[in-house]
Structures are given as structure tokens and as C-alpha cells.
């Protein structure tokens, strides 16, 4: 009897290699099976994925815009410059003398001299007030020296030192660092960046809840199936698997939708933005999401899908027991 039993048991169990092979095969099957299940209810699947997509597109789009803004303004920092407005009584030759003096300072790269005449011409051309200025018989504009600090000296203190040195020149009427507003912009962007981060965090949480709730409903719909699986010896891992893959698909599709939404938005605003930047004589091309960003978006989205379904399955699978 005993040997009979042992024979029965060996017959009853697949070998280790078979087990391993069918384990992987099983994963692949469930992978596509869960996709098939979703495609059977395309409308509700699409709606869930849309919710995930929109929730992820919002912080992702803001992030991309912010990156663009940072890139755009990144060029401005190196163009930090000090405008030195000379006193009106300074003549052109005096001004040129000061220019070459300052040029020799070790913390200065270059000094540009803008004569009163040139300043007036540029102002007339750019401002559109040309005719109004013509009506004046004297040129109201001072001559200006544009001083560029050495790049290595762009740190705050060095620039401030240079600024006060220029202010103390007796020919100077006024000297002003044109970087103040850039700095303010940076501060604002820092705040916005943090806001985007918090928004992203909250919306990621929302995605978790959406996936969790959807999976919870799926579990309830398939209550009977789960009971049967448990009755005939399905392990928790076996029963969990299709739901986890469902979460995976939700995450993947949600991520793709988010990517499409962001790309489409960037595309549709790129031409107005280019128009805007050419107005500022700035060559700028709006960049979309980089390959790496796209990958991380999809990765995060998939992880959220998996984690959301993991929580739902963990919470609700135990409650379903054959009675």
C-alpha cells in the first residue's frame, strides 16, 4: 500500500524542470490573459486608463514646462551683465577711456560701449517711440557701458563687489546689475518646482487609489472564480497574479496616455511659444519629454499600477474564503 501510494504521489507531481518551465509559461499566459480580459471591457478599461493618464499628465506636463523654463533662463545667467550709465557730461572720448580702463580689470571679461547716439537709434528701432523721440531736440539717453563679469566670478559676492566698484567711479551716474530679475525668476521657479512635486505626489496617490478601487471591483466580480481556485488548491500567489498583471496594464496604458497628452500639449503650444521668444530676439526651441523622462514616466506609472493592485489584492483576497 505504501509503495503504491508513493507511486501515486510521484505521478501526481510534475518534475522540477516542468514546474519551472510551466511557471514561466504561466506568467506569460496570465500576462496576455489579463490583457484579453481588459480588452473585453474596452470602455471601462479606457476610462480607468484615461483617469490615470490625466492624473499623471498634469504633473508631468508642468514638469516639462518647468524644465524648458529652466533651460531658457539657464542661458541668461551667463549673460549676467552690469549696465553702467555714465553721467551726461561725459564725452565720447572720455567714455572710451573708461571703457579701456575697466577692460583691464581682472574680474571683467568685456566692456561694451554704447554711445548716446547708438542708444537712441536702438531705442527708436525697438520701442516704436521713434517719432516721439524725434520731436525732442536733445537726446535724453545717457551713454552706457555694458560690463560682463568673468564667468568664474558669477557668484554673488564677486559680482556685488564689481558692482560697487563700478558705482564708486566718479563718472558713473548709475550702475545696475541686470541679473536681479533672473534671480527672482529662479526663486519663483524653485517654488513652482516644489509645487509640482507635491502635486505629483498627490496625483500619484490618486492613481494608487483609482487602480486599487478598480482592482477591488474586479476581485468582487470574480469572487466565485477565486473561491473555486481556493477550493482546488490555488495558492494566494496564483490567484493574485492576474490581478497584478491587470494593474500592470492599467499602469502601462495610463502612462502611455499621459505621454500622449503631454506630447500633444507641447506640440500645440510650441509654435506660439516660438513666436513669443523670437519677439524677445531669443532663439529657443521648446523641447518635449526626453527619452529618459518618458521611460521614467512609464516606469512610475507601471509601478503605481502594480502597487495599487497589490494593496487591493492583499486587502480583499483574504476576505474571500470558500464557506
Amino acid at each position, binding site marked *: *500500500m505504501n509503495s*503504491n*501510494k508513493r507511486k*501515486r*504521489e510521484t*505521478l*501526481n*507531481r*510534475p518534475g522540477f524542470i*516542468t*514546474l519551472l*518551465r*510551466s*511557471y514561466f*509559461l*504561466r506568467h506569460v499566459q496570465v500576462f496576455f490573459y489579463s490583457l484579453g480580459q481588459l480588452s473585453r471591457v474596452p470602455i471601462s478599461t479606457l476610462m480607468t486608463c484615461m483617469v490615470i493618464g490625466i492624473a499623471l499628465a498634469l504633473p508631468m506636463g508642468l514638469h516639462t514646462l518647468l524644465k524648458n523654463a529652466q533651460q531658457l533662463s539657464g542661458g541668461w545667467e551667463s549673460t549676467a551683465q552690469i549696465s553702467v550709465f555714465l553721467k551726461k557730461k561725459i564725452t565720447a572720448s572720455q567714455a572710451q577711456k573708461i571703457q579701456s580702463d575697466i577692460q583691464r580689470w581682472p574680474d571683467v571679461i568685456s566692456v561694451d560701449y554704447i554711445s548716446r547716439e547708438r542708444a537712441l537709434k536702438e531705442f527708436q528701432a525697438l520701442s516704436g517711440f521713434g517719432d516721439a523721440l524725434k520731436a525732442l531736440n536733445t537726446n535724453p539717453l545717457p551713454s552706457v557701458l555694458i560690463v560682463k563679469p568673468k564667468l568664474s566670478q558669477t557668484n554673488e559676492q564677486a559680482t556685488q563687489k564689481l558692482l560697487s566698484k563700478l558705482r564708486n567711479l566718479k563718472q558713473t551716474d548709475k550702475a545696475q546689475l541686470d541679473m536681479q530679475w533672473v534671480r527672482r525668476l529662479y526663486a519663483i521657479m524653485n517654488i513652482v518646482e516644489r509645487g509640482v512635486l507635491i502635486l505629483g505626489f498627490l496625483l500619484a496617490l490618486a492613481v494608487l487609489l483609482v487602480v486599487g478601487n478598480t482592482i477591488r471591483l474586479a476581485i468582487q466580480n470574480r469572487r*466565485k*472564480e477565486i*473561491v*473555486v*481556485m*481556493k*477550493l*482546488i*488548491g*490555488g*495558492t*494566494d500567489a*496564483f490567484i493574485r497574479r492576474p490581478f497584478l498583471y491587470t494593474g500592470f496594464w492599467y499602469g502601462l496604458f495610463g502612462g502611455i496616455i499621459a505621454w500622449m497628452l503631454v506630447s500633444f500639449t507641447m506640440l500645440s503650444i510650441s509654435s506660439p511659444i516660438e513666436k513669443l521668444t523670437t519677439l524677445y530676439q531669443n532663439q529657443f526651441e521648446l523641447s518635449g519629454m526626453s527619452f529618459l523622462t518618458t521611460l521614467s514616466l512609464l516606469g512610475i506609472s507601471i509601478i503605481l499600477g502594480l502597487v495599487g493592485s497589490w494593496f487591493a489584492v492583499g486587502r480583499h483576497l483574504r476576505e474571500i*474564503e*470558500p*464557506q
Partner: protein
Amino acid sequence: MIRFVNASKRYSSGFDALQNVSFHMAPGEMAFLTGHSGAGKSSLLKLIALLERSSRGQVIVNNQNLAKVSRRRIPYFRRNIGIIFQDHQLLFDRTVYDNVALPLIIAGFSHNDIGKRVRAALDKVGLLGKEKKYPITLSGGEQQRVGIARAVVNKPPLILADEPTGNLDPELSAEIMNLFQDFSDVGVTVLVATHDIALISQLPYRTLTLKDGKLVNDSQPAL
């Protein structure tokens, strides 16, 4: 194969469904479990399949003390038991073939093996031509036989059946019982809960009778 030692089951409601039940079934034995409605037949089967745990006493199945089987091990334990229900517990959105294949898929058999075993099991219950049908299109007797095929496809050493002939006419019931006899003949232990006294009186098997949760009679067939 199955040994109950003073086993009792008290549900959380406080109801004593089984009290001090003791009996033993040898491997390969076939027996009926009978008694009035509410006597505790289903409860006893549930203790064996670990669908419930005994409140007192011991239940030993296949040399395993069930009190020592952890929650995590229950699925593996159940794979050695074929369970047949009055309401079949079939999945109606899957074909007959897929229903019967389920225990094999769960156990991780290879694709080829699954095909062979499923066809063998369906052949055994006389449903070989219906593997592509959905259970809903089958008669009650056929559905029950799909349930039996699923229970035995794994070749478990123990089969439990709870009212397997509940909705069937006498002729079909006899057919189902014949199937169980066949399994018993090849060394499978079979325990069938039923209140169909007329049916079991025709068959030469041991009968355990429950009354209000107590085992009141354990009769061997008159030879």
C-alpha cells in the same frame, strides 16, 4: 487515510455542528456519510478539506494532523483532495476543457500533460465530445460529471463528495455512484455525503450516520 479523534466543530455563532466524532477510514475505502439535514455532514467534509478547522479533537488526513497545516500550506494540502459539490462550483465563462484543466494548471503541469490528463478524465466521465462546450449548455448530470472530472484529473488519493446526486434522477445518480466505485476500485479513498437513503441501501459500502452533530451509527455492509 482519514482519522477523526474526538473532533468537535463549534461555529463562531456558538452552534455545535459536530461533537466528539471519532472514526477511521483506510486508504482505498469507500463510505457514505448520511444523516438528517443539518446533522453536520457538510461540516465534517469541510474539516477534512480544511475549509473549516476543528474546535477540539484531532483530524488526521493522509498522515497529516490538520491542526499543524499552516494557512500557507492549505492550497498544497487541498491538491491531494478532489472535492465534488452539489452545485458543481464550475466556472461558467470557461469551457469544459478549461474547467477540468484548472487543477493541473494550478499544480504546474506541462501543456502536453494537461491535454492528456484532461481528455483521460473527460473520457472517464463520458464527456469526451463536449470539451469545447460551456457548462451552461450542459444538463445537470453532465455538469456534475464535469465537476467530477475536475476533481479526479489530478489523480488525488482522496475524493470528497457533498450531495453529488442532489438534483439528479435515480438513474443518473446510480451512474455517478458507479464512477465513485470505479475510483475506489483503483485505490482512491472516497467519502460521499448524501441523504439519499434509497440509493445507498442498494450499494455495499460502509455508512456513517450523523445525528445532531454526533456519529450515531457506523455500519459495515451486510455481506
